[in-house]
């Protein structure tokens, strides 16, 4: 091949190869994201409007009586889910990694909730936690409860139930990610540490964790983003209004409520989406910094 053709080939072929993916990203991710940011400065309703209103939508947020609850619930949801879903699946992966009888069966069982649809899982939990559900029923029959525990009507119990559901459903998926990462942790390092007298905890901290640090960072980011976007679990457990009095509403539920129906306030919903982005970006940049520091 002639030298200038080779140079052109080297220069343009990679771009040609990534072009479809870049086009997809630009059309279906970046453009909608930019459009949302632009719409947040307008008074667009689903059927009308479109006038530039500056920061009016952002000012309206302070009048929204549910915004504070939505931010608090969403941040709590993320703050609890990130550590639990980063650490518990790793421990589970260490457990099922061993070659013991029936381990394949247990791996499959742990993965089952991942396959089930989020709505089906949430409905099952709803039936479990209802005032007349299985948990309260068993508690009463065993004489442990005199009154039903208000899992679905108390603000904090409902939030805790949604977190428990999310953790239970996510365990299997992240366990599989960790299983593949653990396969790359060198066995001889563990053996050397054991010879040097390191116990199980020390080997976990000094060999396993550094070996799967990249996966932990990835898992944390995925969980942080999905936790900030929590909707289905709270919607199904708490109902359309977000629990009694809307006290368990999440930011995404608030966005959905603002944009729903033929009178949907798209401009305001877009402003809430931008707020959600800002709130998500902060913790994620912190996580990225923590990961870089760990790599050094």
């Amino acid at each position: 091949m002639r030298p200038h053709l080779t140079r052109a080939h080297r220069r343009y072929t990679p771009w040609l190869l990534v072009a479809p993916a870049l086009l997809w990203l630009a059309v279906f991710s970046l453009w909608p994201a930019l459009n949302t940011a632009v719409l947040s400065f307008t008074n667009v309703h689903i059927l009308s409007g479109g006038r530039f209103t500056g920061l009016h939508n952002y000012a309206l947020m302070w009048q929204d009586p549910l915004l504070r609850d939505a931010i608090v619930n969403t941040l709590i949801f993320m703050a609890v889910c990130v550590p639990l879903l980063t650490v518990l699946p790793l421990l589970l992966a260490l457990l099922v990694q061993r070659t013991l009888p029936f381990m394949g069966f247990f791996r499959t069982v742990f993965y089952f909730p991942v396959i089930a649809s989020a709505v089906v899982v949430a409905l099952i939990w709803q039936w479990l936690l209802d005032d007349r559900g299985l948990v309260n029923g068993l508690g009463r029959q065993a004489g442990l409860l005199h009154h039903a525990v208000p899992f679905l009507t108390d603000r904090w119990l409902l939030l805790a139930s949604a977190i428990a559901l999310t953790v239970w459903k996510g365990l299997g998926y992240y366990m599989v990610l960790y299983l593949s990462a653990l396969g790359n942790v060198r066995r001889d390092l563990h053996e050397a540490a054991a010879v040097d007298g390191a116990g199980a905890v020390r080997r976990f901290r000094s060999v396993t964790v550094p070996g799967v640090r990249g996966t932990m960072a990835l898992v944390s980011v995925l969980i942080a983003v999905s936790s900030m976007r929590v909707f289905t679990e709270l919607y199904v457990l708490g109902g359309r209004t977000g629990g009694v009095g809307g006290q368990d509403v999440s930011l995404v539920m608030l966005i959905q409520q603002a944009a729903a129906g033929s009178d949907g306030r798209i401009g305001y919903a877009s402003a809430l989406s931008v707020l959600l982005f800002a709130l998500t970006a902060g913790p994620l940049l912190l996580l990225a910094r923590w990961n870089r520091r760990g790599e050094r």
Partner: protein
Amino acid sequence: MRSVRATVTLAALASLTLTACGVGGGSSSAGGDQAVATGRPLSGSITFQTWSLKNEKFTPYFDALVKDFENQHPGTTVDWLDQPGEGYSDKVTSQVTGGNLPDVVNLPPDIAHSVAKVGGLLDLARNAPTLTKDYVGSGLTAYTYADLGTGTYGFPWYLGTDISLWNKGMLQRDGLDPAHLPKTFDELVAQARTMHDRSGGKDYLMSRPPGLSDIVNSGTPLMTPDGKKFAFATAGAAAMLDKYTAAYAAGYLPSDVLTSTYEGNSALFNKQVVAWTTGGGNYISSTRQTNPSLVPQIIPSPALDTAPLYVQGLSVSARSKNLPLALAFAQFATDNANQAAFVKLAPGYLPGTTAAAADPAYSRSDGTPQGDAAVFAYQDMQKAVNFTPPVWTNAMDTFLNQQIALAMTGKESSTQALQSAQDRANQLLDQ
């Protein structure tokens, strides 16, 4: 390099969060107040959209309706399409934003209001000279909006209301007399207490939280007389909510009426967990299909207080390419003869025409509970009210329900809850 990486990270984050929650924009234009030229012979084609009416029962009716019209007007074609029941509002919204709203479209008053507000519907008051003579006032009022002037944006098509339905067996089991059914809210609460006490809390008479209709029935107008502000936080409405709160606290309503597991009073009535529900005049005949063993137990009675009015109408798209034909077909489909033939297929509903409202045939029962139910529906309809103002939005409704739930669980006083709901509704009204 670091700044490039930071930029890429932020862009990716934006895509992950904003894309998932982002929403598209809309479009608007006006044109509903145009006058349609009706002198020339009709020709060409139009589309006609109904809402969840293509089924074994109604398809033959619509096929015949379209054929009749086409025969009367040779050279015209009407393409009938039907949309599923779920997500109709979203479907119409996308049709409006996409500029492909069918020429004649079945819209309830709230959706018609949103479409008319952006000039998407033809003003029928301007184009149908005999409108007020041909159609019932309550139906026309539902399609005439204070914020849009004097225009009317739908031909009333069929009207529905709610009557009361009682489970005779449950009433008798708990010592209540089916011959003395409650006629007011206070009597309902009193009998709910009897049922609760006699059944040891297993049976319920009441099973729905209050809403807009209860506020209106407490004697409170929802809005100020000029229709510009909400004003429902009154002592009367608070007293009504207090009664519900006390009944809920005493266990006269199922505890889950405020939670996501609440199935609705009709579903609970079907399961024979509660002995009272509200439903349309055709409730008994539909229950015969779904739960025949319950039918012998059902006794109908008129609604407690003022009944709600449910209106369906046919509107004409202002952007129709063939307005004369669309207008003529909408009037044809909603004339008295065609409406009367239509509601024969759905007992308990009434045509939206003045001729039908005066027809004594609708006030005669065949002596069966279903016949009585249809007559009660007809009687209720004479004074029924559309409780939901067109400016009442989903967001307002959600917030009102949230506040009612807070009051009923004792987390707020009724007065405070209604005041918060009213303040929020007024804020949203200005947005």
